[in-house]
């Protein structure tokens, strides 16, 4: 186990007076640090707090907000809310599946993109919508989705 990871997780845990009660907040911070809830980080939390790894994984697998797999540099969240559905949201998902060549929850080989279906983003007035990292995109069509992906790829190629 990497000592560095353990000491970072330790400093997260120490912020909470009752880590067991604050397990969700701890996991949120660990996910922000590692990118997902990795097996290694679960082991670290158990060693530091004594919370059984079965409980940690139980909580992590219960909530949609926790990921047990790594995400891409660009994390795409496709809104599956009612308004987006009525206005053609599944086309957005279909387009991503087609263009990226991966299923929801997976990551592209270059590590650039991952996409997932999420419950309502609350941007119903600009449906269908998706979010890439912290930016929301609305009134999407297949064409617009392709354009957005292309522009990101271009940006990355220039780096």
């Amino acid at each position, binding site marked *: 186990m990497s000592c560095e990871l353990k000491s970072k997780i330790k400093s997260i845990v120490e912020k909470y007076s009752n880590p067991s009660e604050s397990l*969700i907040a701890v996991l949120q911070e660990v996910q922000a640090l590692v990118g997902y809830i990795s097996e290694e980080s679960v082991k670290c939390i158990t060693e530091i707090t004594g919370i059984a790894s079965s409980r940690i994984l139980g*909580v992590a697998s219960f909530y*949609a907000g926790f990921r047990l797999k790594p995400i891409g540099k660009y994390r795409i969240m496709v809104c599956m*809310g009612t308004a987006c559905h*009525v206005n053609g949201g599944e086309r957005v998902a279909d387009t991503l599946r087609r263009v990226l060549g991966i299923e929801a929850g997976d990551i592209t080989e270059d590590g650039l993109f991952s996409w997932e279906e999420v419950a*309502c983003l609350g*941007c119903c007035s600009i449906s269908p919508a998706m979010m890439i990292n912290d930016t929301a995109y609305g009134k999407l069509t297949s064409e617009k989705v392709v354009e957005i992906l292309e522009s990101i790829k271009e940006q990355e190629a220039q780096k």
Partner: protein
Amino acid sequence: MRFLLGYGSCGIASGADFVLEGLNEVLKSTEYSVEKVGCNGLCFAEPIVEIIDDNGNSTLYGRLDKESAKVLAEGVLKGEMPEGNKFTDAELNFLNSQKRIVLSGCGKVNPESIDSYISMGGYNAFRKALEMGSDKIIEEIKASGLRGRGGAGFPTHFKWQSAKNSQSDEKYVVCNADEGDPGAFMDRAVLEGDPHRVLEGMMIAGIAIGAKMGIIYVRAEYPLAVKRLQLAINELREKKLLGKNILNSGFDFDFSIMMGAGAFVCGEETALLASLGGNRGMPVTKPPFPAQKGFRKQPTNINNVETFANVSWIIENGGSSFAEMGTENSKGTKVFALAGRVKRGGLVEVPMGITIEKIVFDICGGIIDDADVKAVQMGGPSGGCIPKDMLSTPIDYESIAKTGAIMGSGGMVVMDENTCMVDMAKFFMDFTSKESCGKCVPCRIGTTRMLEILERIVDGKGTEGDIDTLMELAESIKTGALCGLGNSAPNPVLTTIKYFKDEYLAHINEKKCPAKKCTSLISYTIDEELCKGCSLCSRKCPNNAISGEIKKPFSINSELCIRCGQCIATCKFGAIKIESGVK
């Protein structure tokens, strides 16, 4: 002169940052600056700027971009009110026909400044409540007739009274801001646009039940709301409106924020409490009720965002003024989030008792492209679809429940003739089957079985007994599940079977989707008369399903066609048609 820019999530997603850039370019050398406010609910016309002149007159501008924002600012500086991008009277009617209490500060107050909230009378109700004391506060809430705005409509005073009656030195006030109902965004708008209103309501509840701690359980998917809440709490602490012995009253109070991790079931009180304790959000049997044994096994009062947002108004204006609005059993106003196939989607706050029809047509301008309305979905995955001929139903808890839907938290999704009701039922069942916590067998397995049947039906593989099996499963889930999620999960299926049985039968018996929506039951064809052979569709088709010779009619290969609709969107001649049934 003031320049207010709508800077909620929806505004930002629609390009409020570009508008800000445009305005700043013009205003940077002047004494004016742009004030960022929350969403005023006119979501259909984002990004929005409101100009308030020195006499307090307001003019609204919508659908702005960087260039039009510059033109606007230049015009205003010259003392003119430019006509371009100005809201039309019909659009303004959207706002003017509302009665705003919960939303009164949204789009008016600067959500990142406590002084802005105080200058509009903020925290006066809190000061008054400190003098009134517990009993009088609960009396006013009782007189107001306020009922829980999260959906179930439980009388608020009753919850407060029982939490007050529970004896303990340690009590909690919890705000349920885990707005998980897909299609609803009222709470997000209030938290982002006027966070102090919610906090003030919680503080008053704290006085009423004798709690020293307020916890806001908010969705992690609302980062802007979390940020603004935290800022608001920090400001309250600086002003010494939180902490020990607030305003020398002897009352202690403070807040903490907990971010949810994405589970719809956590909207249920006992599941929320489990989640607050760092566990899987699984409901438990009541009693004991949270008011007796809640967070940390102590008396806890849980209300929804909108419920708390009503409290300061009631305390300031009196419960009886609140009770003057609405119907006999449903008092006050209700905020709805209008979305779907409606012309002017956004936030609508209206007195209870108004009809659904009035909201959809008079306030929101009717259906996109003037299409025919088919149904209005209320209550999300726990609610139901109310058909066209029942849209004159007044909005109150009991009347809505009679239709088979529920009032719910306020999501209202409008559907037109192109919406397939079987597909909608499948959509909601997909949602609830994923969100079922798995504790109760009828809910965990029943929703999955119902989903499988619905998937078969939209796929053209439905069989004769399917509707009966769906009804039977629905009954077992409704009676056999412990919590509200399971009890209400079959509602979307039951209401669509009740009001749109012919659509189910068309799918099952004729293998047709009347709304031409279910991809397994439709095919795309090109009208040879209308096709000019421009080849645009063929070039845009992602699956190379369209071929032909230039200047001659093209054709679609049904086997390759994935029915994505790209060709229809690109064809300039309207030559591509969707036909019911598979070729």
